[in-house]
């Protein structure tokens, strides 16, 4: 198909043959724009960060290495070469990086300044969160933080605003890009073996690392009705294509603990691409949102053609690599209840930011007069699927959240789970950390400070 987008302000049309050509390869090999670097080719280092702008949404930083060309149709891409003013004046973030010695080897620098320029466009002031997805091996980050803080209040250069200039584009032909859910449902019924590509943060690696041919594919990027997030008063209804970034914005006030988790979900670049539906539908045992959503009592709607069925989220995960999803059926919406005041979720990984969970524990009890009357506790990383700790829950109901019930419930966790050892954590550590998360939860509900990142020197 022909893909039309704005590239550093210039309307550009490229031909995609397979649908899985990446933006990074296009920039470096065809467009001659070698400022954008390949550091890892899997979305983990940020050296390939670009700014993508689309109708009706704030500009976002994305990893070009796992961004497929059809995902750009009708949008605008700004690379490091498009940050400076056409008259040669450096962008304020570029100038600050020079002034504060923010580059050493310079290889990560284009990705950094691009992500920084995007944060600058959006007024995002928290460097640690915005830049968690950009790795630097030389500077120790200190000068980059100084540069970021120095330039964040500078005026936005006019040329950085791509919204008014987005190209008007026609529909598509051979690579399927549906524009609403009905179209997708009909096509997928006819192509049940197709790969659905939402954000592509996981599927991207099938292409760049496993070197797989994915045809046939459908890109869901333009299915606007699946991106809706509806506030229904007592719950939200998330379209499966809502991005993690969008979800984070919506849940922040209601569920600060969930927001803290989501801020550690990948990086800004990954959250901007990744979708809630994708995080559930790929069935990973270590996806970050499912344990939290299960503990919150989320339910989902699956759609096949015009037939829809609803289930509790925990019932979707059958076994490792196996979900309760028929061929041609796709995840359409997620219903997430509000008002669960005792909900908390804890993520344990080797590194705080941009890492995959070794264990993710989500807790949600209902207390009446100091007694637990209901409990929903779910874990990621403890089994082949995101899974409720049913025995643990049972030991808590009818008891206060103190010893001996806590110790008893922690012991019961060994009946709920038999975790594995792998490169992320040993089985024994997974179990003990999961048990201790319950202890932490009790401290947390009592108002104790339990976040080691909130401790002051």
């Amino acid at each position: 198909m022909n893909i039309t987008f704005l590239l550093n302000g210039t309307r550009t049309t490229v031909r995609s043959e397979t649908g899985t050509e990446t933006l990074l390869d296009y920039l470096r090999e065809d467009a001659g724009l070698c400022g954008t670097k390949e550091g890892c080719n899997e979305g983990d280092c940020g050296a390939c960060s670009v700014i993508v702008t689309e109708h009706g949404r704030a500009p976002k930083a994305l990893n070009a290495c796992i961004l497929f060309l059809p995902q750009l149709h009708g949008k605008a891409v700004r690379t490091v070469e498009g940050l400076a003013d056409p008259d040669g004046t450096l962008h304020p973030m570029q100038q600050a990086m020079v002034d504060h010695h923010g580059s050493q080897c310079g290889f990560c620098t284009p990705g950094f300044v691009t992500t920084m320029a995007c944060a600058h466009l959006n007024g995002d002031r928290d460097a640690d969160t915005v830049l968690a997805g950009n790795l630097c091996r030389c500077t120790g980050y200190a000068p980059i933080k100084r540069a970021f803080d120095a330039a964040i209040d500078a005026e936005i250069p006019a040329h950085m605003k791509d919204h008014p200039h987005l190209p008007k584009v026609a529909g598509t032909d051979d690579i399927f890009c549906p524009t609403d859910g009905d179209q997708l449902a009909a096509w997928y019924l006819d192509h049940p073996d197709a790969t659905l590509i939402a954000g592509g943060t996981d599927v991207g690696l099938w292409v760049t690392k496993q070197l797989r041919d994915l045809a046939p594919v459908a890109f869901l990027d333009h299915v606007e009705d699946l991106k809706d997030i509806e506030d229904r008063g007592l719950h939200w209804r998330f379209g499966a294509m809502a991005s993690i970034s969008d979800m984070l914005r919506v849940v922040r006030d209601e569920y600060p603990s969930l927001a803290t988790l989501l801020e550690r979900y990948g990086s800004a670049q990954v959250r901007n691409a990744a979708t809630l539906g994708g995080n559930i539908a790929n069935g990973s045992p270590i996806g970050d949102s499912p344990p939290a959503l299960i503990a919150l009592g989320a339910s989902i709607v699956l759609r096949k053609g015009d037939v829809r069925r609803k289930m509790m989220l925990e019932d979707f995960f059958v076994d490792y690599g196996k979900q309760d999803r028929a061929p041609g059926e796709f995840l359409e919406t997620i219903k997430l209840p509000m008002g669960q005041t005792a909900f908390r979720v804890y993520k344990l990984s080797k590194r705080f930011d941009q890492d995959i969970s070794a264990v993710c524990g989500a807790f949600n009890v209902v207390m009446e007069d100091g007694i637990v009357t209901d409990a929903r506790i779910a874990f990621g990383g403890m089994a082949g699927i995101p899974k409720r700790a049913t025995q643990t829950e049972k030991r808590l109901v009818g008891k206060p959240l103190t010893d001996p019930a806590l110790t008893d419930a922690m012991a019961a966790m060994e009946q709920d789970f038999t975790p594995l050892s792998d490169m992320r954590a040993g089985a024994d550590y997974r179990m003990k950390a999961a048990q201790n998360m319950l202890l932490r939860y009790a401290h947390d509900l009592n108002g104790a400070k339990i976040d080691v990142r909130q401790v002051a020197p």
Partner: protein
Amino acid sequence: MTQPTPNPTRARSEHPDTQPVNTAAAQSAPPAKPLPHDAAREHVTGAARYVDDTPTPAGTLHLAFGLATIAAGKIASMDVDPVRNAPGVRAVLTAQDLPAANDVSPSAHDEPLLSDGAVHYHGQPLFLVVADSHLAARKAARLANIDYHEHTPILTVDQALAADSRFEDGPRIYQKGSISDGLSQAPHTLSGSINVGGQEHFYLEGQAALALPGEAGDVTVLSSTQHPTEIQHKVAEALGVPFHMVTVQTRRMGGGFGGKESQGNALAVACAVAAARTGRPCKMRYDRDDDFIITGKRHDCRIDYTVGFDDQGCVSAVDFTHLFRCGWAQDLSLPVADRAMLHADNAYDLPHVRITSHRLKTNTASATAFRGFGGPQGMVGIERVMDHVAHHLGLDPAKVRQRNYYPPAAHASGGSISGKMKTGITPYGMPVTDFVLDRMTDRLLHTSDYESRRAAVADWNDANTVIKKGIAFSPVKFGISFTLTHLNQAGALVQIYADGSVLINHGGTEMGQGLFQKVAQVAAATLGVDQRMIRPSATDTSKVPNTSATAASSGSDLNGMAVQVACATLRDRIAQIVGSTQGVPASSVRFADGRVLADGVDLTFAEAAALAYTNRVSLSATGFYKTPDIAWDRIAGHGRPFYYFAYGCSVSEVAVDTLTGEYNILRTDILHDCGNSLNPALDVGQIEGGCVQGIGWLTTEELVWDDQGRLRTHAPSTYKIPAMSDRPDVFEVALWDEPNPVNTVHRSKAVGEPPFMHGISTFLAVSHACAACGPNYPDLQAPATFEEVFHAIGRARG
């Protein structure tokens, strides 16, 4: 609190190593300006070109290796027809197809480019794919049908010891005094052991090379390498041509850290061989996963120790055993393990010491150079001992460290202890005459408010059960010079054009450390011109021959001096011609602020250059420098391997969650010795960056191999270097502002490696927090992953 009073004049006149300052340095103003990196603007605009960004001629082919999928054995059969028949493939090369040497080793000729039939590690290159695109080559490389006769691999140091699988005929042993006397007479002894993990370099730019075939068999290679001369040699040997047929150029690397000292050889040789065979330009870059799997990393090791000490924590004897896992080929393992031994004392005057070092050969990727080159491992060993001793005695570890320090340098005493000053001698027989850590420590403990914070940490730990805090101090004394003495030389070529613009070239490579900028500042200072008149150019074996790797922190020391010498030569020539044409004594001609001045003479530098040109004066000059006064016998373990020591110290504080072992670095304060800094901004950059890299090594960066010898952490998804928020929340860096007592370029000190070891204070602070959880020594192992910290807390509790 002792406040240092820098006194360069006295330092120079009283120090025994002092040499007269040469004319060039004496005449020129110090270059110490905090100027940005020479390519900062190119970095931030994306205009800086790395190997893979270089526009290639039409018809350029792309390469990928096919890799072994077992750790040890022999190839029974290898069918590469499916590879050859894959789309876009132009050729497939195996060992039999190579024209001359099949070797990419930097040392012992034991590292074939392509397997000769034996498989030594999982990920070893077996064949080479030459294809129309990078992607086509990668896809095809997975299609070979290979059968192996598998052997049981040797993967751990214990397995290697049991099998006596090692480099060299036995362990190296360096010693001083009598270890048996020292231990037997000590009031207390302790034994322990610490595993120290390896480290992937994770240079952001992966390994890359591009070979452009020329004429008559010559070739030009662009390589992302710290060692263009070695690339030149290996390529020439592989092609069977003299060195002069091969030109290697390196404009910059996207990070090196030692990982591009020898590990780029394979790609450059592969490109050159494929270019010679096809007659077309050939380019190769490793995909990140391949880079992790194929290339060497920092040596992991185990250090066993027995220490004897008194009630005050004064150490009388230490017996170390270093077990270094070197991987399958020798590479640089011998000097790496040597340097670990040479830093087993760190800052401490140990009366009786023995270091026994085993260099073990295993079926894993060949471990290689990494910032510090074994020094950090050796230093972790002795810092662990000091920590253990202090814990055993219930003393403040900072005080125990100070009690064991080498005696201070003579000039620092103010001369009051006339003639009685004792000189410390290292375990390898080198007097420590420049020790300043006594005063640096006093200052840092004061500025970091160490004592009251240590008390506050104790109060916190009394009041909190879930989150514990820890605080720790650690010093660094790092020896500067290549231990292979002949490497301590450098050459430069400086050219002044008739418009007064200056092009400098030297053997040093730019990997982000700011070497080109520092050397350009030295040139500008020597010629008395503005920085903008000086242009550094790509390192090029056809301009300066027989160079050493940019390694061992030596880049500025060696190349700065060589460029200074060349610039001085040119300046003197210009002074001569200005003097003779203007009728003034040449010795009265001064170079400052871009002007050439004498009595009645005021020329711009450009006018002076033009004057020299029209008077037929040569305006290009070479410069050469070799480090004086060093001599080293690595077998005997005796001599003066280092020209001087660079010093530093740090204090770090952490908070640890005892429920999961998670922790956060709250604050790090560093005081670091760069001598007279050539560029304080770049030096601070090396210190901050080195410290965080060292923190990564000892905290989150865990390399995991499975029992088949496969590396399981082969991408940033599973191998976690520090991210933005992992830097210390409060991060204070200060420079110790005293000149180097020995005659280095502008009396500066090397800064590349020493700050890496400031990461050790973070590790020790975590250990301190673990120790607050119970009565026992937590026996923290490195890296201190959250999981390891969780276990250490368990050990502390008992």
